[in-house]
């Protein structure tokens, strides 16, 4: 791997993101918001704990889907951005594998999760580990019986879609959901790190 994660994280973590005169933040082909992680955690946790037991999986799948779709479109915006061209692109030698490693460096730089790819079988399987992530904050004491990193799950699958799912499709009709992801370990569940396994859907 030719990607220098430290260099990317150092550069990309300094990007300033604040609303313009309209109070909006257009960038990477999307509108960007910056909110306390507590909001996202609160909604996901309260929703999945309040729905009837038989519906928890459905609620979780929908939360993961939101991140999957977001990760696909925003991920594409990131890897085609001026910032990417300046910082990451010069390091890319092997396509799309180095693009994937670069994407997870940015994933880390922007505070989504301190994460890296630990296993990659091109176009088949990817395993990501996250050593610190805001979604684990839903547990302040003890260990949960359910995994809660819905955002990381969705984005992991989305990044594989972008790498191996064919040309980017803005409509989301093709490419998106070529892969899916299952969380197999979680800090919120008492594990040392979160682990996410992506495979063909």
């Amino acid at each position, binding site marked *: 791997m030719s990607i220098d994660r430290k260099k990317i994280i150092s550069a990309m973590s300094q990007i300033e993101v604040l609303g313009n005169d309209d*109070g909006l933040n257009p960038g990477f082909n999307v509108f960007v918001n910056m909110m*306390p*992680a507590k909001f996202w955690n609160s909604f996901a946790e309260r*929703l999945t704990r309040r*729905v009837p037991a038989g519906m928890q999986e459905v609620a979780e799948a929908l939360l993961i889907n*939101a991140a999957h779709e977001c990760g696909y479109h*925003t991920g594409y915006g990131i890897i085609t951005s001026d910032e990417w061209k300046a910082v990451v692109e010069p390091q890319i030698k092997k396509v799309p594998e180095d693009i994937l490693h670069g994407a997870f460096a940015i994933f880390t730089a922007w*505070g989504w999760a301190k994460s890296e790819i630990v296993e990659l079988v091109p176009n088949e399987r990817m395993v990501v580990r996250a050593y610190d992530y805001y979604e684990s*904050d839903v547990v302040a004491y003890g260990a949960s019986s359910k995994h809660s990193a819905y955002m990381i799950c969705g984005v992991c699958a989305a990044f594989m879609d972008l790498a191996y799912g064919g040309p980017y499709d803005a409509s989301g009709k093709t490419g998106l959901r070529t892969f899916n992801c299952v969380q197999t370990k979680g800090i919120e569940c008492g594990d040392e790190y979160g682990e996410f396994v992506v495979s063909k859907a």
Partner: protein
Amino acid sequence: MTSYRKTELELNKAFDPQSCRHIMEGNTVVLHCHHYATLYTQLAMDCGMLDAKALMAECSEDTWEEFLREYFRSRGVSSVRERIALAEQSYAAAGLGRMRVTCASPESGEVTLDHSHLDEGWIKKWGHYKSPVNFIGAGYISALFSAVFDLPARSFAVTEAEAIVCGAPRSRFIVVAR
């Protein structure tokens, strides 16, 4: 002699290289996009098992009430005028839109959005919609009123009377004490 001072929001933000988190005013903050916000909103709207729209607004209210209250406390901001100005700026800094509190009291208030992340993100993604979708904004406004007037959370009911997503030129919220 008259002097004027413009109230300006200052946000302390830093990247912690150990945890790789962005910390703003003591809170972990995270960037997300309009796809994420609108899909979460749609999930709330489609949830038939509980009132997830109210849940979303409550989560927004709890998050922002804590943020704004602590911001005012740490900066020693006590005037209603300054608190409102800072809260409007905080909404914009978060990329959520341009907010104006047109009137406010511990009994009621009116708030408009000239621009809205949720509404314009929804239109960008799916086009216009028949009813308001900005539950995150409604929760923020509840939080704003609670924090400005030093009242507990859930002190105010907020209704979106007009919405950009429905085709209105601006969104308008009505606030009433519960």
